[in-house]
């Protein structure tokens, strides 16, 4: 090589970007293009010439770097390697190293190294590698996700209780979840894939399918409830929902999900039939049936409406206050008590009767059977009512009739008793006295006495007969009371009685504390006074019969009464019998002072006057001294 060429090569080498160096077999630098080395690695000639700077190779690249040097020295081939060299300031620079050996002018083997700074491209490459790795990692992850997702969807579809299918644009099955199809319709994939959907449909539902497909085409989705043929030949109701989509190849498909509605529809049908039966039963029932919730009727049947006297609609539109208005005011408190008790006895029927006021104002008795129930998820009451008004009215009529019968029967018994006993005794007395009179035929005086006794007994019988007649008249008639002068009636009664008992010494003393007393009474007042006086005379064993008649005025319950007392010196009445003597009664016969109905008749007459009669002792606590018959009359 001549000097010109040397100078040219020198120019090229010194000014090139690549690092050019010559090393000896000890890997020491013998030459380098300083500019490039300084520029790329920061080293001067002084840093490198005569030195083995394999230490500048990055520890991770040392092996490959050394390999290059060793191989290069062994053969004269070019070897290339990429390795990092340490820059003078510490960082590493990627160099693409090419080297080969050669024999210099001295016959020594040298190595020629040419290095290019590939830091940027390496960084780029590394970055790219990193990105690739990242991408691969992501792809792997994504693939895994997709795989997992696919697995999950596969599991879902395969294990779904619903039918899942993909139908292509030619209306044929591309996919089915075989397990569900087999379970519900009995078909395998082989039976269905590639087949038209309409082949499996009930002929009567084909129209529906067409409409559904048209809708799906326009709107992108559609639904259908139709019968699908089971492999066994029977049909099952399947409700399907389909959505259109495009697959990866751009083909339009439909994802269809179907649910077997056969049992549900059967149950619904049963429910409808049951409801129909219930409706027929409740609407035809003669019992009123209602459902009450929050004091509002949620349901009433025709019978209930008829009982209340309103239309069903009227009742169903009632507010809470209307229910209260319907109940009879006297039964409202009772009803609320019963309702309160119902809260406690939750599962049993509660039975009670109460009155309601119908729309027309009529009072109606109802027998109510009610029970707590759940209606539309909330507590309510089921009411079953029967109109028992007629039954109650009949019962009341029967009771009234029974009462009247009882009264009539008792009266009949009373009069029978009266006739049997009292007249029986009178006749016995007459018979016995007559027998006595016959015994005394030899004693005219005694015989006469007995005959007179018989006459008196006959008179007694006559009085008894008269009293019975008066008693029966009182029972029949309504009393026409008037204002009566007591003194007048008393005076005439005293005269009558004295004449009747002319053989007895009778003294009647008058003690009138008020002048001109008048009472509310009628003509029977004579009988009242006569009975009291006769009673005082008959039950008196004294030689002289003394009767004091006292008239005064008292206030009782803010009502003015005329009090007439008949105080005698007779045999008196024991305390045990003071109340009973006025109760000849229809059931008992406990008359004391003499027989006859005298005192019970007195009581009856006094009651008809709205008055009273009772007896006390003449001397309080000592009944033997005599009696005080007290009569209270309303002032006339």
């Amino acid at each position, binding site marked *: 090589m001549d000097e010109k060429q040397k100078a040219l090569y020198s120019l090229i080498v010194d000014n090139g970007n690549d690092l050019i160096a010559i090393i000896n077999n000890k890997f020491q630098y013998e030459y380098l293009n300083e500019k490039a080395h300084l520029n790329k690695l920061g080293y001067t000639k002084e840093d490198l010439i005569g030195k083995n700077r394999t230490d500048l190779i990055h520890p991770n690249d040392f092996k490959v770097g050394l390999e290059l040097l060793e191989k290069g020295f062994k053969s004269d081939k070019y070897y290339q390697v990429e390795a990092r060299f340490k820059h003078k300031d510490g960082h590493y620079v990627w160099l693409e190293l090419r080297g080969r050996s050669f024999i210099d002018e001295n016959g020594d083997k040298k190595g020629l190294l040419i290095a290019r700074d590939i830091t940027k491209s390496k960084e780029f490459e590394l970055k790219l590698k990193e990105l690739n790795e990242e991408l691969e990692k992501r792809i792997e992850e994504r693939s895994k996700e997709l795989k997992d997702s696919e697995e999950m969807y596969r599991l879902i579809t395969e294990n779904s209780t619903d039918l899942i299918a993909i139908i292509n644009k030619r209306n044929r099955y591309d996919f089915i979840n075989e397990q569900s199809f087999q379970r519900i319709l009995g078909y395998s994939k082989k039976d269905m894939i590639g087949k038209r959907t309409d082949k499996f449909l009930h002929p009567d539902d084909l129209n529906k399918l067409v409409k559904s497909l048209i809708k799906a085409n326009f709107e992108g989705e559609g639904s259908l409830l139709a019968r699908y043929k089971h492999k066994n030949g029977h049909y099952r109701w399947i409700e399907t929902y389909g959505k259109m989509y495009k697959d990866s190849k751009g083909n339009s498909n439909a994802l269809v999900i179907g649910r077997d509605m056969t049992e549900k529809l059967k149950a619904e049908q049963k429910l409808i039939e049951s409801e129909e039966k219930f409706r027929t039963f409740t609407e035809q029932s003669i019992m009123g049936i209602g459902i009450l919730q929050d004091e509002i009727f949620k349901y009433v049947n025709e019978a209930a409406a008829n009982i209340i006297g309103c239309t069903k609609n009227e009742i169903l539109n009632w507010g809470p206050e209307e229910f209260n208005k319907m109940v009879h005011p006297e039964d409202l408190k009772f009803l609320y008590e019963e309702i309160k008790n119902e809260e406690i006895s939750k599962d049993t029927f509660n039975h009670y009767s109460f009155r309601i006021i119908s729309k027309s104002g009529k009072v109606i008795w109802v027998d109510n059977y009610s029970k707590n129930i759940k209606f539309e998820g909330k507590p309510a009451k089921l009411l079953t009512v029967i109109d028992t008004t007629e039954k109650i009215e009949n019962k009341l009529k029967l009771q009234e009739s029974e009462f009247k019968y009882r009264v009539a029967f008792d009266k009949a018994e009373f009069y029978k008793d009266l006739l*049997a006993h009292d007249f029986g*005794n009178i006749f*016995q*007395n007459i*018979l*016995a006295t007559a027998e006595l009179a016959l*015994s005394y035929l030899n004693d005219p005086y005694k015989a006469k006495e007995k005959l007179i006794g018989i006459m008196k007994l006959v008179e007694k019988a006559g009085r008894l007969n008269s009293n019975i007649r008066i008693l029966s008249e009182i029972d029949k008639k309504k009393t026409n009371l008037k204002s009566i002068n007591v003194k007048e009636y008393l005076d005439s009664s005293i005269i009558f009685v004295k004449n009747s008992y002319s053989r007895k010494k009778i003294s009647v003393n008058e003690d009138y504390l008020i002048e001109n007393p008048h009472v509310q009474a009628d003509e029977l007042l004579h009988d009242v006074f006569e009975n009291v006086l006769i009673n005082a005379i008959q039950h008196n064993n004294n030689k002289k019969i003394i009767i004091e008649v006292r008239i005064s005025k008292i206030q009782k319950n803010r009502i003015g009464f005329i009090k007439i007392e008949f105080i005698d010196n007779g045999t008196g009445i024991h305390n*045990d019998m003071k109340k009973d003597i006025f109760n000849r009664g229809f059931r008992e*016969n406990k*008359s004391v002072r003499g027989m006859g109905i005298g005192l019970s008749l007195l009581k009856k007459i006094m009651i008809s006057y709205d008055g009273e009669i009772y007896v006390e002792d003449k001397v309080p606590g000592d009944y033997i001294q005599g009696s005080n018959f007290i009569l209270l009359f309303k002032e006339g």
Partner: protein
Amino acid sequence: MIDDDIPLRTVFEELLKFNGFDVIAKASNGKEAVAMFEKMEKKPDVILMDHRMPIMDGITATKEILKIDKNAKIIFASADLSIRELAFSIGASSFKNKPFTIQRLISNIKKLI
């Protein structure tokens, strides 16, 4: 003699005395009669018992007296024929339906004593 009708009792007493019988005790109601019978040392040969009386009627008094002395001879005298069977069922010795003659009564008494 047990009867709440005092005049009737008086007439019967007189008639019985006339026919040689002693009326050793008289009562106006069943309760009085039972108390009297219980206290008596010498019991009567025959008891003449009315039915319808206050405080205690003849049927009840008969039962009580028979508890005291089951051998007591009781002649029921009543205008109420309906109690005849009952009177016999509880132990009455005889039943006389009022009105009856003294001769019938005496005949009955003699049969019993």
